[in-house]
């Protein structure tokens, strides 16, 4: 019979409310830029419900920040896949931050909205959230090189669009 084993060191995650309070603004900033204003709330709730589902099995309290952005990135990409499969009428999807947004912001939203999803998600992580390429690669499940390429190609297109 096996003898008693030393229990692995476990860092239990904090109460979910604290986790949500600590990460909600960052996740929302990412999602609103990555999927657009009308769908940000849905993606936000899907992200945190998915997190809640996996939360009791989570053990390492230190990686929560990367973990939640990985989920959010997946939800943003899922969202774009869904929209691509089943496009809604254009008029129901005004991708602007708010009614009456500055013309400069309208141009920006339109240009960002035309980026391929992986480029858009990478650009937003890099320049809205100031994440490193290594972090972006981790969040999106690719190489650091791939993250760099997505950001650069995305920025190139944005500059071509709006100068």
């Amino acid at each position, binding site marked *: 019979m096996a003898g008693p084993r030393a229990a692995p060191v476990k860092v*239990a*995650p*904090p*109460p*979910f*409310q*604290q986790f*949500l*309070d600590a990460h*909600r*603004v960052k*996740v*929302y*900033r*990412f999602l*609103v*830029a990555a999927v657009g204003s009308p769908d*940000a*709330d849905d993606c*936000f*709730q899907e992200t*945190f*419900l998915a997190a*809640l*589902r996996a*939360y*009791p099995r989570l053990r390492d309290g230190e990686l929560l920040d990367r973990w939640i952005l990985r989920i959010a990135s997946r939800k943003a990409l899922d969202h774009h896949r869904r929209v691509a499969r089943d496009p809604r009428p254009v008029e129901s999807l005004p991708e602007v*931050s*708010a009614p009456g947004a500055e013309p400069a*912001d309208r141009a*920006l*939203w339109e240009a*960002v909205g035309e980026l391929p999803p992986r480029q858009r998600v990478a*650009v*937003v992580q*890099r*320049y*809205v959230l100031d994440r490193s390429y290594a972090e972006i690669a981790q969040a999106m499940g690719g190489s650091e090189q791939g993250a760099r390429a997505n950001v650069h190609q995305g*920025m190139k297109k*944005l*500059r071509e669009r*709006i*100068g």
Partner: protein
Amino acid sequence: MRAKELKRLSAGAEERSARAAAGLADLAWANGLLDIAVGSVGSPVGRLTIAVTRRGLVRVAYDDEAVDEVLDRLGRELSPRILESARETEGWRRELEEFFEGRRTRFDLPVDRRLIRGVQRDVLAATRRVPYGRVATYGEIAVRIGRPRAARAVGRALGANPIPIVIPCHRVIGANGKLIGYAGGIDRKVALLSLEGALPTG
């Protein structure tokens, strides 16, 4: 275009994320993903934090305990799936408010006893049978649980009562009628007993 202009895309996220986050608890509860809902009740003995599980009320904390610490402990001992929710704690909030308004003398909603362990189970079960407006001594509770010499153990078990007010440990007093030993402080014990019209004389 400069890269930092992209930050404008996330304008308003502070406020909008707060709104989206507030709706999360009800959604999570409806989907069976929330184990503990936390609410707050104003009372004459200070603001109370209450925690409700699917089984019932599991914790009442006075405001001299930091809410974060209360939640930390619930997270370790029961589940970290904890969110604030006015809606899921509404029923207990109402019963407690009615109690403090003097319109309720017993609580009807279920209680979750998972934080009550060992000898504390018997002690708190006996304490719950002390009716509104009445008192019992530590020694009497000890007798009622069949351990007549364990008055001190009774005191310790009551001091660690996770659901004060609802499990009325304030109704248990010293042998000579003295209002000794209340985890929430003697002032609160006096206030609760006087609300119930049960202040012993002398």
